[in-house]
Structure formats: structure tokens, C-alpha cells
């Protein structure tokens, strides 16, 4: 096999005027993290609301929330990106559409909105699973104490449910970081896009992709450990959680 390995490539200047190729990749990491973090906040808030509605006794509200979940689950992320980026500006009134198209960071804003909605439907499923996993006596106890339904949710059900769903939310957070790579199709220069452009400029395919892969793995490790720390901090006494041996 004749492939010219050149691991020193990262310290050479890249043609995109940021500095070395390493700087290029780190700039990509910055956009990946910025996109994922902001979208994650959006997904958590929306997902918590929709997920809670799914467990409420109002039939039509449940149906609406279920429809929301199915809508965002059954369309590929790539197509959703295109819908937000190419289709949405054409469907709103012309003035708003033009403003959207001229935003300086249009791909970034679009990616955040798209990933936020996409992930919120998954968060919603986990939040309602968490609420449903609680013994039904807890809800009854709340009502017996004279709490209204919103109060029962606020003081009894949600604080428990949120602590229970932290492990599945971890993998959803890892997913949002990985999914942000799809935004390269609408021109967001995140980590994968930078690795790809580095490969195009330098022809060092394997070095570029190896570096990107290692960065993704490091981010994964950091996130997993951070969430494990949070999980331990908020563990409900008496519940089996990883790391505490179910004490």
C-alpha cells in the first residue's frame, strides 16, 4: 500500500487562514459543542413539557403531544435539516424569509433549532417513561395530601422522574453531539466538516479522520463522566443507581 503518512500535518498551516490544521479542527470542535449545548437546552425544556403532557389525564393534550413525538421521530434528521434550512424561509411571509436567509450564522441557527426539536421528541419519550415508571401510589399520595395536579407534578412526580431518567438522557446527549455532524450538509463548519475539508486540502485522509475520531471519543468520555457525577449527586436514597451499589 502506498500511502504517505504524515502525522506532522497538524502543525502545518492550513489554507483557511485560521492557523494550523489543528486550529482548524479545534474551531470545528467549538462549533460542534456550541451547537450541541444550545440545542440540548432547547431539547430539555421542550422535551420536559411534551413528556409531562403525555402523562396527563387530558386525552386531547396527550394526543397532540404524541403527534408531536411521531412527527419528529419519523422523518430522517437530514430531511428535517433541509426542511428548516431550505423550506421554512419560503413558507413564512417574504420579509421574515429574507431576514432568515440573510442571518450571518444561518446554518448554525438552523442546526440548533432542528436538533433542538428533533431531540426534544426523544427526551419527551424518556421523561414520560420516567414519570410512568413511578409507583402510581405517589400520584395518589400527592392528591391525598390535597395537592392540585400541577402541584403533584411540581413537587412529587417531576423531581423523582428527572433523577430516574438521567442515564438515558446521557446517551441522548451523546447522540445530539454526534447528530450535529449532519449539519455539515447545510454548511455548518463543525468538527466532521473540518476534518473533511482538511482531507481535501492536505490529502491526508486518515490523519484527518483519526484526529476527528479521537476528539469525538474524548468528548464522549468527558460527557459520560460528567453525567455519572451528576447522577451520583442527585441520586434518590433507596433507589438502585450505578456506582452506589444500591445502598
Amino acid at each position, binding site marked *: *500500500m502506498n500511502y504517505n503518512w504524515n502525522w506532522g500535518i497538524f502543525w502545518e498551516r492550513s489554507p483557511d487562514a485560521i492557523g494550523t490544521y489543528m486550529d482548524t479542527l479545534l474551531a470545528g470542535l467549538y462549533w460542534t459543542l456550541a451547537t450541541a449545548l444550545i440545542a440540548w437546552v432547547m431539547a430539555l425544556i421542550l422535551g420536559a413539557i411534551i413528556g409531562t403532557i403525555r402523562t396527563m389525564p387530558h386525552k386531547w393534550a396527550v394526543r397532540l403531544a404524541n403527534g408531536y413525538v411521531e412527527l419528529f*421521530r419519523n422523518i*430522517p434528521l437530514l*430531511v428535517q435539516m433541509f*426542511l428548516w434550512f431550505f*423550506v421554512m424561509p*419560503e413558507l413564512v*411571509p417574504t420579509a421574515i424569509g429574507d431576514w432568515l436567509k440573510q442571518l450571518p450564522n444561518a446554518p448554525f441557527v438552523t442546526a440548533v433549532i432542528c436538533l433542538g426539536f428533533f431531540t426534544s421528541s426523544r427526551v419527551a419519550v424518556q421523561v414520560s417513561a420516567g414519570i410512568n415508571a413511578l409507583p402510581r401510589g405517589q400520584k395518589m399520595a400527592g392528591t391525598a395530601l390535597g395537592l392540585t395536579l400541577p402541584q403533584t407534578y411540581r413537587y412529587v412526580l417531576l423531581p423523582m422522574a428527572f433523577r430516574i431518567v438521567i442515564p438515558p438522557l446521557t446517551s441522548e446527549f451523546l447522540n445530539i453531539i454526534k447528530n450535529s455532524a449532519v449539519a455539515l450538509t447545510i454548511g455548518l463548519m463543525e468538527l*466532521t466538516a473540518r476534518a473533511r475539508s482538511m482531507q481535501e486540502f492536505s490529502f491526508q485522509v486518515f490523519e484527518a479522520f483519526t484526529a476527528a475520531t479521537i476528539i*469525538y471519543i474524548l468528548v464522549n468520555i468527558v460527557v459520560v463522566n460528567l453525567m455519572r457525577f451528576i447522577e451520583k449527586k442527585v441520586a434518590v436514597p433507596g433507589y438502585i443507581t450505578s456506582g452506589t451499589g444500591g445502598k
Partner: protein
Amino acid sequence: MINFDFDVIERSWVYLFQTGMAFTLELTGLAMVGGIVIGTLLAMMRLSSNKLISTVATTYVNLIRSVPLVLVIFWFYFLVPYIGAWIIGANEPIKVGAFTSSLITFILFEAAYYCEIMRAGIQSIPRGQVWAGQALGMNYWQTMGNIVLPQAFRNMIPVLLTQTIVLFQDVSLVYVLSITDFVGAASKVAQRDGRLVEMYLFVAVVYFVLCFSLSLLVKRLQQKVAIIR
């Protein structure tokens, strides 16, 4: 607001489905079969008592699962020609077609996800059944093939199918290699005719209808195959 022109779909109907959707479905089907076969082998490797074998499988699965699919697609797109050259001992990277390249990518990528499903399936079978098999004089492969895997598979059919719906959606990402799958075909027509809104809306509707009905079927199947314990 804009003027809709849904004629563009009628004009490109044949191309969209016979070229695009055919590619997507073929890739999904083959990747599902290949992914489940290799995924099951990986699951057996992960559960092996041989440290080396289980470490190799675990590392592979965790590696694949921590990297974005788009990056994996790029990896294999560039890697497969080199591996091919290495296998047949050629000096130059061999030429692999778009279909073969993306098929290998999806089989190897999905195998990591199917592996975790099959591992859960195998672990859901009580230990005693393995001992029963051994007591009957069966060897490892007979126990696995006749007792454990059929039950594990049956238990996991709904989850395997749900993963296949995810795979069906993920195939759209071959767009990054300019391959003409369903999305690729639609976006080519969209750009040629300047009809992005109609085409992408149509694509979204088609995916939604297909995936939603499939997931309803899976839900029904789930109730049917559930083993009463």
C-alpha cells in the same frame, strides 16, 4: 408566499422511486441482514469468556458508537478501497462502487447497534437453559444455535425492527457522498428545477408515512410475539 408547483413530483416520479427509493430500500434490506448476522456474532464475541475476543468486540462496538455516522461514512468511503487493495495484494487502492462502499459501511456500522440488541436478547435467556443444553450433551454451537439464539431473536424482533426503521432513515446520509438514494434523487431534481420546497416537503411526507406505518406494525407485532411468562 410562493407558488407551489407539485407537477415537479409527477414529472420526476419514476426517477425518484425507481432509482432513488429502490437504492434506499435495497441498501436498507441488505444492511439489515448483514448487520444482524455480524451483530449477532459480535454479541457472542462480547459475551465470550475469552478476554481477548470480548475486548476486541467491545472496543469495536464502543468505537463505532461514539463517532457520528457521517464521519463513519467518510471513513469507510476512503478506507474500503485501501483494505480491498490490501486483501488482494494490489499496489493501488481498488475502485469500489458507490453501492458496495455504502453497503459495507452500513453493515459494519449497524452491526455495532444490532450487537447491543442481540446481547440484551442473549442475556435475557435464563442461564439454566444453557446448562440444560450442555447436560443433553450439546456443544457450544448447538446450544447457541438450537436453544439460545432462536429465543433471543424472537424476544428482540420488535427492537431489531425498530432499529431497522432507524437504519432506513439513516441511509439518507449517503447524501454526503452524492449518492442517488431517495433524498439524493429528490435533491438532484430539486436543484435542477429550482423546486426545493416541493421536493423536500414531498420527501418528508413519504418518509413520515412509511416510518409511521412501519412503527405501528412493529407495535402490533410486539404484542403478538410477546412470550407469556
